Structure formats: structure tokens, C-alpha cells
């Protein structure tokens, strides 16, 4: 029996992604996955329609120069703006791995320069993995799609163990708290207790629109508020749900930050 298992396992071949290696391209058309919308490709000249109203989470904002922008932290990827805009100023983001350093000011989110952060992350990759990264996940009120994507990280496609990232059962052994879901009153205390139990330096990765903004649950009386109102957030991962690539990127950003915290105080 054991021999059968070994044969079957080895015989099934290798599918693991090269991500985040520079040679990573497109796997099974993953670049075409709908993640979040991106605006601002060019100015919108049709002032007649009101796409800001179309967006169910209020993610669309206009800069004075008529450039519409999408707040990645609020976009649930419903595609309404892309479908509705006669000018075609919105498109699906071609980034399937959006994740970035968190700042509380909403304007910064839309204007942030992701490429710059990417370069920084790539530069740190070598040094970052001298040590492994231990992650405690907590669901504070999700629909379970985020958990499904977090779990995907350990499947043979993403296999995050190859990057030295592991889930840990106890917050006492965790470097990173990975939070998913729209924070509910019942989970608030549990979240704070889990965070308090972590050793310093500790990092928080907020994954998914629900934890960053509330998404479709923002108006619910059961929604406490965006995560940063309760605990400090270091890295944000947009998406509803974020792709496994994006969650991986978020954890790599956290690893980069941890390295900085460790060297500079």
C-alpha cells in the first residue's frame, strides 16, 4: 500500500509556481482573474454619468483632473464600473498579487506606487528568508472565501513552505497575524487577546476588503469597523477574496518589514 501511495504521489508531477521569482509569467491564465478594478488610465470626459454611485462600496473617487481612481482597499471586484463606463476608463487590474504597506490615510492607498514597493520586496527576498516566517491566521467574520484562499497557499501550486512560511497553532509562536473577515462584536475581544499573546516584534496582515474596509458588510450593525481601528495594521491585501498570490505577496511584505524592524530597532 505504501508503495502505491509513493508511486502515485511522485508520478503526479510538479505544478508548483515560480512566484515570486522574476521568471514567473502566467499560469493557467491566472493573469485574467478578476481581482480589483483599476481606474485612471485616462481622464473621464463624460461628466454626465456618475460611476461613483454605481460602485456598491464607494471605492471610486475623482481627482480634480477628472481622473477616476479606485480605492483598492474597498473594491470588491463586482465589475460594475467596468461594465457601465461608456468611456472605458476602468479595467481589471493586471496585478494578481496586490499587497502593500498599510497607511491609514485612504488617499494614499489609491496613489501608492506599487512598483516601488515591489522592487524593495524583491531586493529583500534574499535576506528575508534567512529565517522562516510563522503565521497565525484568525477569521474575525469572513464569508469563508478568504480562508479558502489562505488554505490554498499550502496546496502544491503555491506551496508556501518552499519560501519558509508556516502556519502556527499558537499566537505565542507567531511573527505575523493574518486577519480575514469583517470584524464582529463577538470576535473583537478574541482578536485583541490573540494579538496581545504574540511576541514582539509582531506584524499584522489584513487580507481582504472586509478586514480593510468592511466591503458589503460595512453598513451592518454587526460590523465593528476596519481592522486598524482595533489593532495596528502593517500590510494590506486587497481583493474579495484576495488571490493566493496576493496573500503570498502580503506575507512577503510582512517578512520584509520584519527584517527592517529587526535591524533598525
Amino acid at each position, binding site marked *: 500500500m505504501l508503495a502505491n501511495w509513493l508511486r502515485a504521489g511522485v508520478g503526479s508531477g510538479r505544478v508548483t509556481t515560480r512566484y515570486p521569482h522574476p521568471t514567473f509569467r502566467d499560469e493557467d491564465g491566472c493573469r485574467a482573474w478578476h481581482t480589483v478594478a483599476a481606474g485612471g488610465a485616462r481622464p473621464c470626459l463624460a461628466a454626465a454619468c456618475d460611476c461613483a454611485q454605481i460602485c456598491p462600496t464607494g471605492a471610486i473617487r475623482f481627482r480634480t483632473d477628472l481622473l477616476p481612481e479606485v480605492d483598492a482597499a474597498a473594491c470588491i471586484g463586482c465589475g460594475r464600473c467596468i461594465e457601465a463606463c461608456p468611456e472605458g476608463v476602468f479595467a481589471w487590474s493586471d496585478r494578481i498579487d496586490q499587497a502593500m504597506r498599510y497607511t491609514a490615510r485612504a488617499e494614499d492607498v489609491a496613489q501608492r506606487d506599487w512598483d516601488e514597493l515591489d522592487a524593495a520586496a524583491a531586493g529583500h527576498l534574499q535576506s528575508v528568508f534567512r529565517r522562516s516566517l510563522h503565521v497565525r491566521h484568525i477569521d474575525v*467574520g469572513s*464569508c469563508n472565501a478568504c480562508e479558502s484562499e489562505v488554505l490554498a497557499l499550502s496546496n502544491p501550486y503555491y506551496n508556501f513552505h518552499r519560501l519558509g512560511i508556516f502556519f502556527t497553532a499558537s499566537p505565542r509562536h507567531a511573527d505575523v497575524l493574518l486577519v480575514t473577515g469583517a470584524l464582529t462584536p463577538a470576535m473583537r475581544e478574541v482578536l485583541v487577546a490573540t494579538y496581545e499573546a504574540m511576541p514582539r516584534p509582531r506584524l499584522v496582515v489584513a487580507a481582504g476588503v472586509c478586514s480593510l474596509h468592511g466591503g458589503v458588510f460595512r453598513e451592518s450593525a454587526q460590523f465593528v469597523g476596519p481592522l486598524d481601528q482595533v489593532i495596528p495594521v502593517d500590510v494590506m491585501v486587497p481583493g474579495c477574496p484576495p488571490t493566493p498570490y496576493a496573500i503570498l505577496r502580503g506575507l512577503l511584505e510582512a517578512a520584509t518589514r520584519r527584517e527592517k524592524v529587526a535591524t533598525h530597532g
Partner: protein
Amino acid sequence: MRVMQRETSDPLDPSLLHLDFATFARRVLAARGNPASAGPASDEQLLFFGVWESEGTPNLMASIGNTATGQSSLYTTPLDVRSWRSLAGEWPALLWPELEVADRLGVLPAGHPDPHPLLHPERHTLQSRVTGAGAFPLPLGPVRADVTESGFFLFDTIGEQIMHMQPQLYYKHRDVERLAVGRSMDDVTLLAERISGVTTAAHTAAYASAVEQACGWMAPEPLRYERQLFMELERLYNHAHDIGQLASAAGMTVAHAQLTRVKEDCLRMAARLTGSRYLRTAVSPFRFAPVDWPDVRTWLLEALARVDARLQQFVSLLRRTPTFVDRLVGTGTVERTWVPAYGLVGPTARACGFRTDARLAYAPWTAHAGFSVAVAPRAQGDALDRFLVRVEEWRVSVDMIRWLVSQLASTRPTDRWTPPEVNADEARGWGVGTVEGPRGRISHVVCVERGRIGFWGVRSASSWIWPVFGLATANGNIQTDFPVMDASFGLSYAGTDR
């Protein structure tokens, strides 16, 4: 006392029957079948039980489906909070639904067998129920090892033996149904997609058919085919996930890795079809998904053949591995009598030998698409039977997708893209939509008022099953079996808490 009302139907909406409490109670209890026997379930099923607040006054609302005709009825009765009598003593299936109503209104029904706050776990601490020498309470959660949804379990153990177990859910209660009130039909689709994120297609399909019924519109055949195809694809990735988790719980690491790969392949198929790995935006009322079926047919069938071969290879290895099978036999057994008593649904009920599946009653046309009910031949109701039912259902779903995609590919585009003539602003009425999700029957009750949602009631499959999870866990099992039992049920927290 309230004046007894005669049984009348709403003059504007004949599908909603206003009853007095006694008649309402009789109607609801008639749907329970015979709790004393383990015979076939009755023709009637309770699809929904909850509270409908109309112009400031609360009403109990129930939807009952007839499995012979596929029709659903809606009953309501004004809730006089002073004389509200619990029905859960007569039918345990109502234990949790009544507590939900009680929490919303702040009043308990008289005679409820197990009164405690349900919707707000932060206001309540479960009490251990076993005392005596060697009794030891073991709390687990709400944050547990690994990546899981949040939920809490209180075990009462003596040694390794589990004597009693109480699950506490609703940590993730987001009050989704109330959030819908006053919103447009399309905005509520976004909420329906996120009741249970891994059951998007089933919830949106139930919601869409409820809304369409409320608007007096009947989905054309290709649209029904398309939605069924999405639901079967969703079943595939959920079953692959659940079987994989079961393999992992039983220590089968190779099988676990390969089944997570099957799941990922299914998610990628969904993304290639619709742009979304979780089939978001694929199903919405009155609308087709923007999928060019003739175009996708070839690759979809090829991809399907590949995932099917992989799953079959590893499932057949699992079935021949004694260390796996032994862990499942007699683990987490659901007694046959619990099925009618708790109104159990889905693979959990079919593992006990019950031929119950929403596709039989509410989508009988699926018989042409290759659907047949997967009932466990052993009918022992244990983890092994739940595993075997899922394996058989996987096969049926693969066959159905093959048939459905062939049909869709040969439908002329002109037939598929005819837009419905619905004036959303005029639309008003009640509707009930019922589908078979991966974990069992899902029902949505909707009231549409001038194109907006006036009421939304949701019952997901897991919400019927959770109350017996504790019973099955304490049914002669030891603590180390818990991961196997947990995985073999594969219940949804988000769908229940909603």
C-alpha cells in the same frame, strides 16, 4: 387575546397565507414527518423558519416545500410575544431557528427546551453539562489550530471519551438578511454571493430564483442549465476540499496534497469560465453569465476529464487503505432517527440512507442531465458513509456538467441572450428559491417591493445540521477522532452565522 384569524391569503399576493398561531403551528409541525420512525421523510419539508417584521410588528414566517409537486408555500402568523409558545419541544429541528427569532426580538418562546443566547456568543458562556468523578470540560476555539473559520466547542470528557459536546456558533453573525432590506435586487446579489463564500453559486441561484418568482418571471431553460452547471462545479471543488480535509485528518498526506490540487484545478476552471475563482457575478437575477459556451466546451471537457481522473485515482487508493477506512468506520455516527427529528439535509442525511436532495423535488429536470440521488448503501450515517456519498456525488456532478455544457454549447445564442421583460420598478411579490448546495438544501425567501428587497430570509444547509454535530461527536467517540468527525461533516460557519 388576539382575535383568531381565518386562513386568508394576502389579496395582493396569494402566495403568502396569513394564519392564526394554532394553524401555523399545525402546518409547520406537519412538515416534520414521523419522528418516531426512521422511514422515508414526508412529502413536506420545512424550508425556512424565521421572523418577518412588517410595519413594525413581528410575524413568524415559515416556508414549506412539497417534494411531490416542487411547490413552496409561505405561511405567516402575527407573533404575540406574550403568548408565543415554543414548538421545538415537539420538533427539535426548530431549536436553533426559534432561538434566532428570540434573539432578534428579545423574547423567549414559552417552553423552549434549551433557552440561551444564540446570535451573540459574546453575551453567553456555555456551561459544562457533565459532572461527577473524572468529568473534565475541554473548551476549543473560537480560534483553533490551522486555518479555520471561527467557532467554539465545549467538550465534556471523561478520559479520552467525549460524553457531551456543545457547539457555539454565530461568532461571524453579520446580520446579512437585515442588511438587504431596502436595497436593490442587484445589490442584494452581492450579499448573497458572500453569505458563504465557497457556496456562491448555490446561494445566488436560490436568491435569483426567489426574486424571479416574486417578479412573476420564469428562467428560460438555458439559464437554468447554466446555473446548474455553476452549482455542480461548485460542488466539485467543495467535495474535493472536504475529501481532502478528511484525508488530512486521517493522516493521509499524499492524498491531501493531491486533493487540494484537484480543488485548485476546479477553482481555476471556474476562473477561466467566469473570471472569478468562486463564481462571483456568475449568477444574478434575470441575467445570463457572459460565457461563450460553444467556445468553452472543448477545454472544459478536457479539464474536467483531468481532474476527474486525478480524484478517482486518489479516492480509490484511499478506499483501499485500511488505516484510512478504519478511522472512518463508526466515527461521528448520525442516528437515522435524527434525520427527521432535526430536518437534516444533504450528504449528512443521505449517508443515513435518506433519499433527500433538493434537485429531486425542485429541479426534477436534472434527471435528464444525469442526476441521480447518491445514497450511502451502508446507511450507517458515519464518517465513511459521508465520504462515500461525496465520492458518488462527485461522479454524478461530473456527468451532469458534461451533459449541461453540451446542451449549452448547442443552444443558439439568440435563444440565450433574450433579455427578460421585467419592469423592476413595478415588481412586487413573494418568492421562494430552493437549490441543493454542496452541503445540502439551501432556501431563500424574498419579498420584492417596487424593485427593492423588503424581506430576505436565508436558510443554509449547515444551519440544519449543526445542532446534531454535537450529538454525533459524543456518540461513542474519543477526542482524537474529532478532526475526522469535523472534516467528515464539513459544515459551514459563515452560511449558518450569516
